[in-house]
Protein backbone atom coordinates (compact mmCIF):
# COMPACT_ATOMS: atom_id res chain seq x y z
CA UNK A 1 0.00 0.00 0.00
CA UNK A 2 2.71 2.45 0.94
CA UNK A 3 5.52 1.15 -1.23
CA UNK A 4 7.57 3.69 -3.10
CA UNK A 5 6.29 2.72 -6.55
CA UNK A 6 2.79 3.76 -5.56
CA UNK A 7 3.53 7.30 -4.46
CA UNK A 8 3.98 8.88 -7.92
CA UNK A 9 0.88 7.11 -9.14
CA UNK A 10 -1.11 8.39 -6.23
CA UNK A 11 0.19 11.91 -6.78
CA UNK A 12 -0.80 11.68 -10.43
CA UNK A 13 -4.23 10.37 -9.58
CA UNK A 14 -4.97 13.29 -7.31
CA UNK A 15 -7.00 15.97 -9.11
CA UNK A 16 -5.37 19.23 -10.08
CA UNK A 17 -1.80 17.98 -10.23
CA UNK A 18 -0.75 18.69 -13.76
CA UNK A 19 -2.10 17.18 -16.98
CA UNK A 20 -3.84 13.83 -16.83
CA UNK A 21 -1.11 11.18 -16.90
CA UNK A 22 -1.77 8.70 -19.65
CA UNK A 23 1.37 6.58 -19.31
CA UNK A 24 -0.09 4.01 -16.89
CA UNK A 25 -3.83 3.78 -17.29
CA UNK A 26 -4.14 1.14 -14.58
CA UNK A 27 -2.26 2.26 -11.53
CA UNK A 28 -2.18 0.24 -8.34
CA UNK A 29 -4.60 2.70 -6.81
CA UNK A 30 -7.13 2.25 -9.55
CA UNK A 31 -6.70 -1.52 -9.51
CA UNK A 32 -7.25 -1.46 -5.77
CA UNK A 33 -10.31 0.69 -6.06
CA UNK A 34 -11.81 -1.56 -8.70
CA UNK A 35 -10.97 -4.64 -6.66
CA UNK A 36 -12.40 -3.39 -3.40
CA UNK A 37 -15.71 -2.51 -5.01
CA UNK A 38 -15.80 -5.85 -6.81
CA UNK A 39 -15.30 -7.63 -3.51
CA UNK A 40 -17.88 -5.50 -1.74
CA UNK A 41 -20.52 -5.26 -4.42
CA UNK A 42 -22.30 -8.63 -4.07
CA UNK A 43 -22.76 -8.37 -0.31
CA UNK A 44 -23.57 -4.67 -0.44
CA UNK A 45 -26.05 -5.06 -3.28
CA UNK A 46 -27.72 -8.04 -1.62
CA UNK A 47 -28.14 -6.44 1.80
CA UNK A 48 -28.98 -3.09 0.22
CA UNK A 49 -31.70 -4.49 -2.02
CA UNK A 50 -33.11 -6.64 0.76
CA UNK A 51 -33.31 -3.60 3.03
CA UNK A 52 -33.74 -0.46 0.93
CA UNK A 53 -36.68 -1.68 -1.12
CA UNK A 54 -38.58 -2.93 1.96
CA UNK A 55 -37.91 0.27 3.90
CA UNK A 56 -39.12 2.50 1.10
CA UNK A 57 -42.07 0.19 0.58
CA UNK A 58 -42.94 0.21 4.29
CA UNK A 59 -42.74 3.98 4.59
CA UNK A 60 -44.92 4.27 1.50
CA UNK A 61 -47.37 1.70 2.87
CA UNK A 62 -47.64 3.60 6.14
CA UNK A 63 -49.13 6.52 4.25
CA UNK A 64 -51.92 4.43 2.71
CA UNK A 65 -55.04 2.65 3.88
CA UNK A 66 -53.79 -0.74 2.60
CA UNK A 67 -55.92 -3.51 4.03
CA UNK A 68 -56.75 -7.10 3.13
CA UNK A 69 -54.76 -8.37 0.17
CA UNK A 70 -51.21 -7.01 -0.12
CA UNK A 71 -51.74 -5.87 -3.70
CA UNK A 72 -55.32 -4.63 -3.34
CA UNK A 73 -56.05 -1.03 -4.30
CA UNK A 74 -55.04 1.52 -1.71
CA UNK A 75 -55.44 5.24 -1.30
CA UNK A 76 -53.00 7.72 0.18
CA UNK A 77 -54.24 8.92 3.53
CA UNK A 78 -51.33 11.10 4.58
CA UNK A 79 -50.31 10.72 8.18
CA UNK A 80 -53.66 9.26 9.26
CA UNK A 81 -52.12 5.91 10.29
CA UNK A 82 -49.57 7.65 12.48
CA UNK A 83 -52.32 9.69 14.10
CA UNK A 84 -54.33 6.50 14.65
CA UNK A 85 -51.39 4.66 16.19
CA UNK A 86 -50.30 7.55 18.41
CA UNK A 87 -53.88 8.14 19.53
CA UNK A 88 -54.43 4.47 20.39
CA UNK A 89 -54.26 4.06 24.15
CA UNK A 90 -55.68 0.53 24.07
CA UNK A 91 -53.05 -1.36 22.06
CA UNK A 92 -50.24 0.93 20.85
CA UNK A 93 -49.18 2.76 24.00
CA UNK A 94 -49.45 -0.25 26.32
CA UNK A 95 -47.38 -2.21 23.78
CA UNK A 96 -44.78 0.58 23.70
CA UNK A 97 -44.71 0.63 27.50
CA UNK A 98 -44.27 -3.16 27.67
CA UNK A 99 -41.48 -3.03 25.10
CA UNK A 100 -39.65 -0.49 27.20
CA UNK A 101 -40.31 -2.23 30.53
CA UNK A 102 -39.23 -5.61 29.14
CA UNK A 103 -36.06 -4.21 27.57
CA UNK A 104 -34.95 -2.02 30.44
CA UNK A 105 -35.74 -4.65 33.08
CA UNK A 106 -34.10 -7.53 31.24
CA UNK A 107 -31.05 -5.63 30.01
CA UNK A 108 -30.31 -3.98 33.38
CA UNK A 109 -30.50 -7.34 35.17
CA UNK A 110 -28.41 -9.01 32.47
CA UNK A 111 -25.77 -6.30 32.67
CA UNK A 112 -25.46 -6.42 36.46
CA UNK A 113 -25.50 -10.23 36.65
CA UNK A 114 -23.32 -10.57 33.56
CA UNK A 115 -20.73 -8.22 35.04
CA UNK A 116 -20.76 -10.08 38.36
CA UNK A 117 -20.31 -13.43 36.61
CA UNK A 118 -17.55 -12.06 34.40
CA UNK A 119 -15.66 -10.82 37.47
CA UNK A 120 -16.25 -14.17 39.15
CA UNK A 121 -14.88 -16.11 36.17
CA UNK A 122 -12.16 -13.65 35.31
CA UNK A 123 -9.17 -15.56 36.64
CA UNK A 124 -8.72 -18.98 35.01
CA UNK A 125 -9.96 -21.99 36.96
CA UNK A 126 -10.18 -25.72 36.43
CA UNK A 127 -13.19 -26.65 34.29
CA UNK A 128 -13.41 -23.17 32.71
CA UNK A 129 -13.94 -24.80 29.30
CA UNK A 130 -16.98 -26.72 30.51
CA UNK A 131 -18.51 -23.80 32.32
CA UNK A 132 -18.21 -21.71 29.16
CA UNK A 133 -19.80 -24.52 27.15
CA UNK A 134 -22.74 -24.58 29.55
CA UNK A 135 -23.02 -20.80 29.30
CA UNK A 136 -23.27 -20.68 25.51
CA UNK A 137 -25.92 -23.40 25.21
CA UNK A 138 -28.91 -21.28 26.38
CA UNK A 139 -28.17 -18.46 23.96
CA UNK A 140 -27.68 -20.83 21.03
CA UNK A 141 -30.86 -22.79 21.69
CA UNK A 142 -33.97 -22.14 19.57
CA UNK A 143 -36.11 -19.62 21.48
CA UNK A 144 -39.19 -21.72 20.71
CA UNK A 145 -37.59 -24.68 22.50
CA UNK A 146 -36.63 -22.40 25.40
CA UNK A 147 -40.25 -21.30 25.59
CA UNK A 148 -41.51 -24.89 25.69
CA UNK A 149 -38.98 -25.86 28.31
CA UNK A 150 -40.09 -23.04 30.63
CA UNK A 151 -43.76 -23.77 29.96
CA UNK A 152 -43.09 -27.22 31.42
CA UNK A 153 -41.04 -25.98 34.37
CA UNK A 154 -43.46 -23.15 35.21
CA UNK A 155 -46.69 -25.04 34.58
CA UNK A 156 -49.08 -23.79 37.31
CA UNK A 157 -50.30 -27.25 38.33
CA UNK A 158 -47.65 -29.76 37.26
CA UNK A 159 -44.47 -27.70 37.04
CA UNK A 160 -41.35 -28.34 39.06
CA UNK A 161 -41.11 -24.63 39.95
CA UNK A 162 -44.31 -24.68 42.00
CA UNK A 163 -43.30 -28.03 43.46
CA UNK A 164 -40.07 -26.46 44.72
CA UNK A 165 -41.88 -23.34 45.97
CA UNK A 166 -44.32 -25.53 47.91
CA UNK A 167 -41.35 -27.46 49.27
CA UNK A 168 -39.96 -24.36 50.96
CA UNK A 169 -43.41 -23.19 52.06
CA UNK A 170 -44.00 -20.44 49.51
CA UNK A 171 -47.38 -19.94 47.79
CA UNK A 172 -47.90 -21.43 44.34
CA UNK A 173 -47.60 -19.03 41.41
CA UNK A 174 -49.46 -18.83 38.10
CA UNK A 175 -46.39 -17.61 36.17
CA UNK A 176 -47.25 -17.61 32.45
CA UNK A 177 -50.85 -18.51 33.21
CA UNK A 178 -51.52 -15.14 34.81
CA UNK A 179 -52.03 -11.74 33.23
CA UNK A 180 -49.93 -9.84 35.74
CA UNK A 181 -47.04 -12.31 36.05
CA UNK A 182 -46.48 -13.13 32.39
CA UNK A 183 -44.30 -10.17 31.44
CA UNK A 184 -42.02 -10.35 34.52
CA UNK A 185 -41.74 -14.13 34.04
CA UNK A 186 -40.70 -13.70 30.41
CA UNK A 187 -38.21 -11.04 31.46
CA UNK A 188 -36.62 -13.53 33.84
CA UNK A 189 -36.53 -16.18 31.11
CA UNK A 190 -34.80 -13.63 28.88
CA UNK A 191 -32.34 -12.97 31.72
CA UNK A 192 -31.68 -16.70 31.99
CA UNK A 193 -31.08 -17.00 28.25
CA UNK A 194 -29.04 -13.86 27.65
CA UNK A 195 -27.00 -13.14 30.80
CA UNK A 196 -24.34 -15.56 29.49
CA UNK A 197 -23.99 -13.38 26.41
CA UNK A 198 -23.20 -10.37 28.60
CA UNK A 199 -20.79 -12.44 30.66
CA UNK A 200 -18.92 -13.66 27.58
CA UNK A 201 -18.73 -10.19 26.03
CA UNK A 202 -17.47 -8.67 29.28
CA UNK A 203 -15.01 -11.53 29.86
CA UNK A 204 -13.61 -10.88 26.40
CA UNK A 205 -13.32 -7.19 27.30
CA UNK A 206 -11.65 -7.97 30.63
CA UNK A 207 -8.90 -10.03 29.00
CA UNK A 208 -7.87 -7.05 26.87
CA UNK A 209 -7.36 -4.74 29.86
CA UNK A 210 -3.79 -3.90 30.89
CA UNK A 211 -2.80 -5.18 34.33
CA UNK A 212 -0.65 -2.26 35.46
CA UNK A 213 -3.38 0.19 36.60
CA UNK A 214 -4.95 -2.43 38.83
CA UNK A 215 -1.58 -3.44 40.20
CA UNK A 216 -0.80 0.18 40.95
CA UNK A 217 -4.11 0.62 42.76
CA UNK A 218 -3.41 -2.51 44.78
CA UNK A 219 -0.01 -1.17 45.80
CA UNK A 220 -1.70 2.07 46.80
CA UNK A 221 -3.91 0.07 49.15
CA UNK A 222 -7.21 0.04 47.24
CA UNK A 223 -9.42 -2.89 48.25
CA UNK A 224 -11.15 -5.25 45.83
CA UNK A 225 -14.32 -3.19 45.48
CA UNK A 226 -12.41 0.07 45.04
CA UNK A 227 -10.22 -1.49 42.37
CA UNK A 228 -13.33 -2.76 40.57
CA UNK A 229 -15.28 0.48 40.89
CA UNK A 230 -12.56 2.99 40.07
CA UNK A 231 -10.10 1.06 37.89
CA UNK A 232 -11.69 -1.93 36.14
CA UNK A 233 -15.16 -0.51 35.49
CA UNK A 234 -13.99 2.72 33.78
CA UNK A 235 -11.58 0.75 31.61
CA UNK A 236 -14.34 -1.67 30.70
CA UNK A 237 -16.56 1.23 29.61
CA UNK A 238 -16.31 0.81 25.82
CA UNK A 239 -16.99 -2.94 25.95
CA UNK A 240 -19.88 -2.38 28.32
CA UNK A 241 -21.36 0.26 26.00
CA UNK A 242 -21.11 -2.01 22.95
CA UNK A 243 -22.56 -4.99 24.80
CA UNK A 244 -25.40 -2.82 26.06
CA UNK A 245 -26.28 -1.59 22.57
CA UNK A 246 -26.22 -5.07 21.05
CA UNK A 247 -28.32 -6.58 23.81
CA UNK A 248 -30.78 -3.68 23.95
CA UNK A 249 -31.44 -3.86 20.20
CA UNK A 250 -32.12 -7.59 20.41
CA UNK A 251 -34.26 -7.26 23.52
CA UNK A 252 -36.39 -4.53 21.93
CA UNK A 253 -37.06 -6.84 18.99
CA UNK A 254 -37.82 -9.96 21.09
CA UNK A 255 -40.52 -11.92 19.33
CA UNK A 256 -40.02 -15.68 19.19
CA UNK A 257 -40.29 -16.50 22.87
CA UNK A 258 -43.19 -14.13 23.48
CA UNK A 259 -45.13 -15.55 20.56
CA UNK A 260 -44.26 -19.17 21.36
CA UNK A 261 -45.35 -18.98 25.00
CA UNK A 262 -48.31 -16.61 24.83
CA UNK A 263 -49.51 -16.89 21.23
CA UNK A 264 -50.93 -14.18 18.98
CA UNK A 265 -51.59 -10.79 20.57
CA UNK A 266 -49.43 -11.61 23.58
CA UNK A 267 -52.18 -13.45 25.46
CA UNK A 268 -55.89 -13.00 26.16
CA UNK A 269 -55.39 -9.57 27.70
CA UNK A 270 -52.47 -8.57 25.42
CA UNK A 271 -50.35 -8.95 28.55
CA UNK A 272 -47.04 -9.52 26.77
CA UNK A 273 -47.86 -7.71 23.54
CA UNK A 274 -44.81 -5.63 22.67
CA UNK A 275 -44.55 -3.35 19.63
CA UNK A 276 -43.02 -6.18 17.64
CA UNK A 277 -45.79 -8.64 18.53
CA UNK A 278 -48.40 -5.92 17.91
CA UNK A 279 -47.02 -5.11 14.47
CA UNK A 280 -46.90 -8.81 13.64
CA UNK A 281 -50.53 -9.26 14.64
CA UNK A 282 -51.66 -6.19 12.70
CA UNK A 283 -49.89 -7.47 9.62
CA UNK A 284 -50.55 -11.18 9.56
CA UNK A 285 -53.70 -11.63 11.66
CA UNK A 286 -55.65 -8.45 10.81
CA UNK A 287 -54.09 -7.58 7.42
CA UNK A 288 -54.02 -3.92 8.52
CA UNK A 289 -50.96 -3.26 6.37
CA UNK A 290 -51.15 0.52 6.44
CA UNK A 291 -51.47 0.84 10.19
CA UNK A 292 -48.92 -1.94 10.74
CA UNK A 293 -46.41 -0.11 8.55
CA UNK A 294 -46.93 3.07 10.56
CA UNK A 295 -46.36 1.16 13.81
CA UNK A 296 -43.21 -0.38 12.33
CA UNK A 297 -41.87 3.00 11.23
CA UNK A 298 -42.45 4.34 14.75
CA UNK A 299 -40.89 1.20 16.24
CA UNK A 300 -37.80 1.50 14.03
CA UNK A 301 -37.38 5.16 15.00
CA UNK A 302 -37.74 4.10 18.63
CA UNK A 303 -34.95 1.53 18.28
CA UNK A 304 -32.69 4.01 16.48
CA UNK A 305 -33.38 6.51 19.26
CA UNK A 306 -32.34 4.01 21.91
CA UNK A 307 -29.16 3.11 20.01
CA UNK A 308 -28.19 6.76 19.54
CA UNK A 309 -28.89 7.50 23.19
CA UNK A 310 -26.85 4.54 24.44
CA UNK A 311 -23.96 5.25 22.08
CA UNK A 312 -23.81 8.89 23.05
CA UNK A 313 -23.92 8.13 26.76
CA UNK A 314 -21.38 5.34 26.39
CA UNK A 315 -19.14 7.59 24.35
CA UNK A 316 -19.30 10.45 26.84
CA UNK A 317 -18.57 8.19 29.77
CA UNK A 318 -15.47 6.80 28.19
CA UNK A 319 -14.23 9.88 26.35
Amino acid at each position, binding site marked *: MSTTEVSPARAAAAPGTGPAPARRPRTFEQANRRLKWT*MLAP*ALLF*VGLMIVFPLVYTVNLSLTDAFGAVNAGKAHVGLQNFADALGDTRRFWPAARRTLVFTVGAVVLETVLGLALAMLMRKPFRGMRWVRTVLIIPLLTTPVAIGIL*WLLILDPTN*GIANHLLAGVGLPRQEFLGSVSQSLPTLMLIDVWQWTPMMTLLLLAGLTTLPEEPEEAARVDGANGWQRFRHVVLPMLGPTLATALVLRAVDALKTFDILYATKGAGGGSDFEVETLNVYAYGLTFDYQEYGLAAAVLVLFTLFIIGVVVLLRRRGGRKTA
Partner: protein
Amino acid sequence: MTATVTPVPVPVARHLRRRAVRSWLRGIAIAVVTLVFALPLVWMFAAAFKTNVQVTDPSVGLWFSPTLENFRSIVEAGQIVRSMGNSLLVGVVSTVLSAVIAVPAAWAVGRFDMHRTGSLILVARIVPAISLLVPWYYLFAQMGLVGSYTVLILSQMFVSVPLIMWIMISFFAGLPVELEEAARTDGLSAFGAFWRIALPLAAPGTATASLLAFVFSWNNFMFALIFADDRTQTVPVTLFNFISYASTDWGGLMAAATLITVPVVLAAVLGQKYLVAGLTSGATKG
Protein backbone atom coordinates in the same frame (compact mmCIF):
# COMPACT_ATOMS: atom_id res chain seq x y z
CA MET B 1 2.64 -13.79 42.02
CA THR B 2 1.19 -10.78 43.78
CA ALA B 3 2.21 -11.85 47.28
CA THR B 4 5.69 -10.43 46.77
CA VAL B 5 4.41 -6.87 46.39
CA THR B 6 1.84 -6.95 49.19
CA PRO B 7 2.86 -3.96 51.33
CA VAL B 8 0.81 -4.80 54.43
CA PRO B 9 2.64 -7.26 56.63
CA VAL B 10 -0.14 -9.81 57.12
CA PRO B 11 0.89 -12.95 59.00
CA VAL B 12 1.56 -15.45 56.24
CA ALA B 13 -0.51 -18.31 57.67
CA ARG B 14 -3.63 -16.21 58.10
CA HIS B 15 -3.16 -14.69 54.67
CA LEU B 16 -2.93 -18.11 53.03
CA ARG B 17 -5.92 -19.44 54.96
CA ARG B 18 -8.04 -16.51 53.88
CA ARG B 19 -7.00 -17.05 50.30
CA ALA B 20 -7.91 -20.73 50.47
CA VAL B 21 -11.35 -19.90 51.87
CA ARG B 22 -11.90 -17.31 49.20
CA SER B 23 -10.97 -19.69 46.40
CA TRP B 24 -13.35 -22.32 47.84
CA LEU B 25 -16.19 -19.81 47.93
CA ARG B 26 -15.43 -18.84 44.37
CA GLY B 27 -15.53 -22.48 43.31
CA ILE B 28 -18.90 -22.97 44.96
CA ALA B 29 -20.30 -19.79 43.38
CA ILE B 30 -19.16 -20.90 39.93
CA ALA B 31 -20.71 -24.35 40.45
CA VAL B 32 -24.04 -22.82 41.52
CA VAL B 33 -24.08 -20.50 38.50
CA THR B 34 -23.31 -23.39 36.16
CA LEU B 35 -26.17 -25.42 37.64
CA VAL B 36 -28.61 -22.52 37.24
CA PHE B 37 -27.87 -22.39 33.53
CA ALA B 38 -27.64 -26.14 32.97
CA LEU B 39 -30.49 -27.57 35.06
CA PRO B 40 -33.48 -26.24 33.06
CA LEU B 41 -32.08 -27.88 29.92
CA VAL B 42 -31.26 -31.08 31.80
CA TRP B 43 -34.87 -31.08 33.00
CA MET B 44 -36.07 -30.80 29.41
CA PHE B 45 -33.82 -33.64 28.20
CA ALA B 46 -34.96 -35.81 31.10
CA ALA B 47 -38.63 -35.11 30.38
CA ALA B 48 -38.14 -36.31 26.80
CA PHE B 49 -37.39 -39.79 28.17
CA LYS B 50 -40.33 -39.89 30.61
CA THR B 51 -43.83 -41.24 30.14
CA ASN B 52 -46.58 -38.63 30.08
CA VAL B 53 -47.58 -39.58 33.60
CA GLN B 54 -44.03 -39.05 34.85
CA VAL B 55 -43.62 -35.71 33.03
CA THR B 56 -46.57 -34.18 34.85
CA ASP B 57 -45.45 -35.47 38.24
CA PRO B 58 -42.66 -33.16 39.43
CA SER B 59 -41.75 -35.52 42.27
CA VAL B 60 -40.33 -37.99 39.74
CA GLY B 61 -37.19 -35.88 39.44
CA LEU B 62 -34.18 -37.15 37.52
CA TRP B 63 -34.21 -40.82 38.61
CA PHE B 64 -36.57 -42.95 36.53
CA SER B 65 -36.36 -45.69 33.94
CA PRO B 66 -36.07 -43.91 30.59
CA THR B 67 -38.29 -44.71 27.62
CA LEU B 68 -37.81 -43.90 23.95
CA GLU B 69 -41.57 -43.94 23.37
CA ASN B 70 -41.81 -40.15 22.90
CA PHE B 71 -39.14 -40.13 20.21
CA ARG B 72 -40.68 -43.13 18.47
CA SER B 73 -44.11 -41.51 18.29
CA ILE B 74 -42.94 -38.11 16.96
CA VAL B 75 -40.56 -39.68 14.45
CA GLU B 76 -43.36 -41.95 13.25
CA ALA B 77 -45.63 -38.94 12.83
CA GLY B 78 -43.04 -37.90 10.23
CA GLN B 79 -43.17 -34.10 10.18
CA ILE B 80 -40.26 -33.56 12.57
CA VAL B 81 -37.86 -35.59 10.43
CA ARG B 82 -38.89 -33.76 7.27
CA SER B 83 -38.54 -30.42 9.09
CA MET B 84 -35.07 -31.25 10.32
CA GLY B 85 -34.09 -32.04 6.74
CA ASN B 86 -35.53 -28.70 5.62
CA SER B 87 -33.71 -26.80 8.37
CA LEU B 88 -30.47 -28.53 7.45
CA LEU B 89 -30.91 -27.68 3.77
CA VAL B 90 -31.81 -24.02 4.38
CA GLY B 91 -29.05 -23.66 6.97
CA VAL B 92 -26.28 -25.13 4.86
CA VAL B 93 -27.17 -23.45 1.57
CA SER B 94 -27.82 -20.02 3.09
CA THR B 95 -24.61 -20.18 5.13
CA VAL B 96 -22.40 -21.22 2.20
CA LEU B 97 -23.85 -18.59 -0.13
CA SER B 98 -23.57 -15.92 2.58
CA ALA B 99 -19.95 -16.78 3.31
CA VAL B 100 -19.10 -16.61 -0.40
CA ILE B 101 -20.25 -13.00 -0.67
CA ALA B 102 -19.61 -11.82 2.90
CA VAL B 103 -15.99 -12.89 3.43
CA PRO B 104 -14.53 -10.96 0.45
CA ALA B 105 -16.66 -7.96 1.42
CA ALA B 106 -15.38 -8.09 4.99
CA TRP B 107 -11.82 -8.22 3.71
CA ALA B 108 -12.42 -5.19 1.50
CA VAL B 109 -13.94 -3.24 4.39
CA GLY B 110 -11.07 -4.16 6.70
CA ARG B 111 -8.16 -3.69 4.30
CA PHE B 112 -9.32 -0.57 2.49
CA ASP B 113 -10.66 1.16 5.57
CA MET B 114 -14.26 1.44 4.41
CA HIS B 115 -15.85 1.36 7.80
CA ARG B 116 -18.48 3.88 6.83
CA THR B 117 -19.69 1.46 4.17
CA GLY B 118 -19.34 -1.35 6.68
CA SER B 119 -21.69 0.35 9.08
CA LEU B 120 -24.53 -0.62 6.74
CA ILE B 121 -24.27 -3.92 8.60
CA LEU B 122 -25.38 -2.22 11.79
CA VAL B 123 -28.46 -0.92 10.01
CA ALA B 124 -29.31 -4.49 9.03
CA ARG B 125 -29.12 -5.46 12.69
CA ILE B 126 -31.28 -2.58 13.89
CA VAL B 127 -34.24 -2.72 11.51
CA PRO B 128 -37.02 -4.95 12.90
CA ALA B 129 -37.35 -7.97 10.63
CA ILE B 130 -41.14 -7.70 10.57
CA SER B 131 -40.91 -4.42 8.66
CA LEU B 132 -39.11 -6.34 5.92
CA LEU B 133 -41.51 -9.26 5.83
CA VAL B 134 -44.50 -7.56 4.17
CA PRO B 135 -42.49 -6.03 1.31
CA TRP B 136 -40.59 -9.29 0.85
CA TYR B 137 -43.81 -11.24 0.91
CA TYR B 138 -45.27 -8.94 -1.71
CA LEU B 139 -42.16 -9.19 -3.87
CA PHE B 140 -41.78 -12.95 -3.54
CA ALA B 141 -45.49 -13.54 -4.10
CA GLN B 142 -45.18 -11.68 -7.43
CA MET B 143 -42.41 -14.08 -8.38
CA GLY B 144 -44.46 -17.07 -7.20
CA LEU B 145 -41.75 -18.01 -4.72
CA VAL B 146 -43.62 -17.98 -1.40
CA GLY B 147 -43.33 -21.36 0.28
CA SER B 148 -40.21 -22.29 -1.67
CA TYR B 149 -36.77 -23.08 -0.32
CA THR B 150 -35.46 -20.14 -2.36
CA VAL B 151 -37.35 -17.63 -0.23
CA LEU B 152 -36.30 -19.26 3.01
CA ILE B 153 -32.67 -19.24 1.89
CA LEU B 154 -32.75 -15.64 0.59
CA SER B 155 -34.42 -14.29 3.72
CA GLN B 156 -32.00 -16.19 5.95
CA MET B 157 -29.08 -14.78 3.98
CA PHE B 158 -30.24 -11.34 4.98
CA VAL B 159 -29.35 -12.33 8.56
CA SER B 160 -26.25 -14.36 7.72
CA VAL B 161 -24.44 -11.93 5.41
CA PRO B 162 -24.27 -9.09 7.98
CA LEU B 163 -23.43 -11.58 10.75
CA ILE B 164 -20.52 -13.12 8.84
CA MET B 165 -19.29 -9.68 7.73
CA TRP B 166 -19.48 -8.42 11.32
CA ILE B 167 -17.31 -11.29 12.58
CA MET B 168 -14.90 -11.35 9.64
CA ILE B 169 -14.19 -7.61 9.63
CA SER B 170 -12.74 -7.85 13.11
CA PHE B 171 -11.04 -11.13 12.24
CA PHE B 172 -9.26 -9.63 9.24
CA ALA B 173 -8.37 -6.61 11.35
CA GLY B 174 -6.54 -8.99 13.67
CA LEU B 175 -4.44 -10.48 10.86
CA PRO B 176 -1.06 -8.79 10.30
CA VAL B 177 -1.29 -6.68 7.14
CA GLU B 178 2.48 -7.08 6.66
CA LEU B 179 2.05 -10.60 5.28
CA GLU B 180 -0.18 -9.35 2.49
CA GLU B 181 2.10 -6.38 1.83
CA ALA B 182 5.08 -8.69 1.56
CA ALA B 183 3.15 -10.83 -0.89
CA ARG B 184 2.30 -7.73 -2.93
CA THR B 185 5.96 -6.69 -3.07
CA ASP B 186 6.77 -10.22 -4.24
CA GLY B 187 4.46 -9.67 -7.21
CA LEU B 188 1.07 -10.96 -6.14
CA SER B 189 -1.91 -8.86 -7.18
CA ALA B 190 -4.20 -7.43 -4.51
CA PHE B 191 -6.68 -10.17 -5.26
CA GLY B 192 -3.87 -12.71 -5.10
CA ALA B 193 -2.95 -11.42 -1.66
CA PHE B 194 -6.53 -11.98 -0.57
CA TRP B 195 -6.92 -15.37 -2.22
CA ARG B 196 -3.53 -16.90 -1.43
CA ILE B 197 -2.63 -15.20 1.87
CA ALA B 198 -5.56 -13.66 3.74
CA LEU B 199 -8.21 -16.27 2.96
CA PRO B 200 -6.23 -19.32 4.15
CA LEU B 201 -5.26 -17.45 7.31
CA ALA B 202 -8.90 -16.54 7.86
CA ALA B 203 -10.08 -20.15 7.75
CA PRO B 204 -10.70 -20.40 11.52
CA GLY B 205 -12.65 -17.13 11.47
CA THR B 206 -14.69 -18.26 8.49
CA ALA B 207 -15.47 -21.53 10.26
CA THR B 208 -16.56 -19.65 13.38
CA ALA B 209 -18.76 -17.24 11.48
CA SER B 210 -20.32 -20.01 9.38
CA LEU B 211 -21.05 -22.17 12.41
CA LEU B 212 -22.83 -19.26 14.11
CA ALA B 213 -24.73 -18.38 10.94
CA PHE B 214 -25.89 -21.98 10.67
CA VAL B 215 -27.05 -22.07 14.29
CA PHE B 216 -29.03 -18.85 13.86
CA SER B 217 -30.58 -20.21 10.68
CA TRP B 218 -31.47 -23.44 12.49
CA ASN B 219 -33.17 -21.33 15.18
CA ASN B 220 -34.96 -18.81 12.97
CA PHE B 221 -38.65 -18.88 13.67
CA MET B 222 -40.28 -15.77 12.26
CA PHE B 223 -39.15 -16.03 8.63
CA ALA B 224 -40.17 -19.67 8.37
CA LEU B 225 -43.49 -18.93 10.07
CA ILE B 226 -44.35 -16.54 7.23
CA PHE B 227 -42.57 -17.97 4.20
CA ALA B 228 -42.62 -21.75 4.64
CA ASP B 229 -45.48 -24.01 3.61
CA ASP B 230 -46.21 -27.55 4.87
CA ARG B 231 -43.60 -29.00 2.55
CA THR B 232 -40.76 -26.60 3.39
CA GLN B 233 -41.52 -26.08 7.09
CA THR B 234 -38.45 -25.82 9.36
CA VAL B 235 -38.04 -27.20 12.87
CA PRO B 236 -39.00 -24.18 15.03
CA VAL B 237 -42.32 -23.88 13.18
CA THR B 238 -43.01 -27.58 13.60
CA LEU B 239 -42.26 -27.23 17.28
CA PHE B 240 -44.53 -24.20 17.53
CA ASN B 241 -47.41 -26.04 15.82
CA PHE B 242 -46.83 -28.86 18.28
CA ILE B 243 -47.54 -26.50 21.21
CA SER B 244 -51.00 -25.67 19.93
CA TYR B 245 -52.29 -29.10 18.96
CA ALA B 246 -50.37 -31.35 21.33
CA SER B 247 -50.23 -29.27 24.49
CA THR B 248 -51.16 -32.27 26.62
CA ASP B 249 -48.49 -34.47 25.05
CA TRP B 250 -45.66 -33.03 27.17
CA GLY B 251 -43.44 -36.02 26.49
CA GLY B 252 -43.70 -35.65 22.72
CA LEU B 253 -43.20 -31.90 23.00
CA MET B 254 -40.05 -32.38 25.08
CA ALA B 255 -38.74 -35.02 22.70
CA ALA B 256 -39.22 -32.63 19.77
CA ALA B 257 -37.56 -29.78 21.68
CA THR B 258 -34.69 -32.13 22.55
CA LEU B 259 -34.20 -33.15 18.91
CA ILE B 260 -33.92 -29.47 17.97
CA THR B 261 -31.51 -28.68 20.78
CA VAL B 262 -29.14 -31.65 20.42
CA PRO B 263 -27.31 -30.30 17.34
CA VAL B 264 -26.80 -26.99 19.13
CA VAL B 265 -25.43 -28.71 22.23
CA LEU B 266 -23.10 -30.76 20.03
CA ALA B 267 -21.91 -27.60 18.29
CA ALA B 268 -21.36 -25.93 21.67
CA VAL B 269 -19.36 -28.85 23.08
CA LEU B 270 -17.21 -29.35 19.99
CA GLY B 271 -16.78 -25.72 18.94
CA GLN B 272 -16.98 -23.86 22.25
CA LYS B 273 -13.78 -21.91 21.66
CA TYR B 274 -14.80 -20.77 18.18
CA LEU B 275 -18.39 -19.97 19.10
CA VAL B 276 -17.31 -17.80 22.03
CA ALA B 277 -14.80 -16.02 19.79
CA GLY B 278 -17.49 -15.42 17.18
CA LEU B 279 -20.14 -14.23 19.61
CA THR B 280 -17.80 -11.77 21.26
CA SER B 281 -15.96 -10.51 18.17
CA GLY B 282 -16.31 -6.84 17.46
CA ALA B 283 -17.43 -6.07 20.99
CA THR B 284 -14.04 -5.26 22.41
CA LYS B 285 -13.13 -2.90 19.63
CA GLY B 286 -16.09 -0.61 20.10
